[in-house]
């Protein structure tokens, strides 16, 4: 253990029994005590633990200065003192693990319906999917910032509508929702069968100009925004 060389020369050789240790030593002591103690330490407690004649308040002041701008600070907690991580480094104290998962089938279907039919109400989504949409699915999509609330529908009950977000377009590499492949393209890609769909809703008027199923979105509003 090397002692601070700076204090060594002027330290009295052996009469330390009655004389307080040099301030450099006192600072080391305070440093060690604050480091190792499980809770903040008061000046009074420092005094009781350090050799007779020490001045912990002064040692604290030196130590505090020494830690200025460092990764750890000396902070006052009530009338006690403790060492704490510098606030700007708090990000080092948490570790984020990112796990990538495929979106559930329910979520992706809900998302697809919103993308193709926006603005669309929950009732409409349920009608199109044929099953009820869980609150969790919608919340998840909102939390992912892929959908958001649109204008309220001017129908009885004034239901809220859902629309896709900029984040959604970004993620899927679309300029806007109109760039989504239309029914004709889906059909050409073999994704859609040639038989007429049982559902009247459609995304583009080139195929099904008059889709008038109850609850279906009015076309004019379909791709607003």
């Amino acid at each position, binding site marked *: 253990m090397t002692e601070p060389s700076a204090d060594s020369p002027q330290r009295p050789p052996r009469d330390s029994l009655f004389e307080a240790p040099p301030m450099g030593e006192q600072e080391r002591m305070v440093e*060690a005590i604050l*480091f*190792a*103690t*499980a*809770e903040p330490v008061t000046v009074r407690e420092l005094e009781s633990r350090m050799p007779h004649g020490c001045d912990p308040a002064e040692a604290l002041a030196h130590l505090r200065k020494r830690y200025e701008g460092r990764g750890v600070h000396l902070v006052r907690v009530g009338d006690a003192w*403790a*060492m*704490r*991580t510098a606030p700007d480094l708090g990000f080092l*104290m*948490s*570790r*984020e*693990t*990112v*796990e*990538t*998962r*495929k*979106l559930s*089938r329910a*979520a*992706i*279907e809900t*998302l*697809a*319906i919103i*993308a*193709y039919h926006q603005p669309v109400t929950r009732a409409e989504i349920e009608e*199109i*999917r*044929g099953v009820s949409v869980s609150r969790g699915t919608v919340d*998840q999509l909102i939390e*992912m910032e892929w959908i958001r609330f649109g204008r309220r529908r001017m129908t009885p009950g004034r239901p809220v509508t859902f629309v896709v977000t900029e984040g959604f377009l970004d993620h*899927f*590499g*679309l300029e806007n929702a109109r760039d*989504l*492949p239309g*029914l004709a*393209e*889906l059909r*050409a*890609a*073999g*994704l*859609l*069968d040639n*038989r007429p*769909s*049982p*559902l009247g809703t459609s995304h583009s008027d080139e195929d099904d100009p008059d889709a008038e199923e109850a609850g279906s979105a009015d076309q004019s509003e379909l791709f607003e925004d």
Partner: protein
Amino acid sequence: MTDADNSSEPISVTDRLAAEALVVDVDGFEGPLDLLLNMARTQKVDLRKISVLALAQQYLAFVEKAKALRIELAADYLVMAAWLAFLKSRLLLPPDPTEEGPSGEDLAAHLAFQLERLQAMREAAARLMARDRLGRDFFARGLPERMERVRKVQYTATLLDLMQAYSRIRTRDDFRPFVMDRDSVFTMEQALDRMRGMIGFAGQWTDIQSYLPEGWDEDPVRWRSATAATFAASLELVKEGRAELRQSETFAPIELRRKEHPRD
């Protein structure tokens, strides 16, 4: 019959006391080697200069005495005694050239080595325990800050997922697998047609498995055919300069995306 220096005396109070001391002593030793080491110390010489013969005699005398006093010695003490008796005979008798095996000197040297090594380990243990120790002489952080673990789940989906989901909804009620003349064969032409229609939407790397037609991924025979055709079609698209393929390692998924600036 003891042939050791401290040979037997008539049974007396001193003997009884000695017997008790013997019991206590055997209890205090961690096996015969430890006992030997302790006896060796009474020779008051460097362990390297120890007289193994004298030590063997001292040990044998100890065992004899224990027997005379009807003290039950643990088996390993007796094994050691037998070994030392053998060693003693080897050391005392002139070497027999016809006899196989190590010489008495070899055996003695090994015993001396064992004692020295045990002694060295004792000293090392003492030095180790006398070091500055964590929690006694030096200390760790008393107020550690808890490391927060934030688990974040990121959900992903590709445009193809979205298209397929939507198509699935639109065809749900009347969906059935394609009916082909050849039931379980998906031709490369079919795959190519299908993929030409879809490739424009594949801006992201997508597993070519996602391009398999609906209903072709359950039956292994159909799956194999569709996979082969889709793979061949992918190669064709790459050849046409319309798509790129990649695979991170052997057997990893093969991924496809459209080429941003197709040739021509």
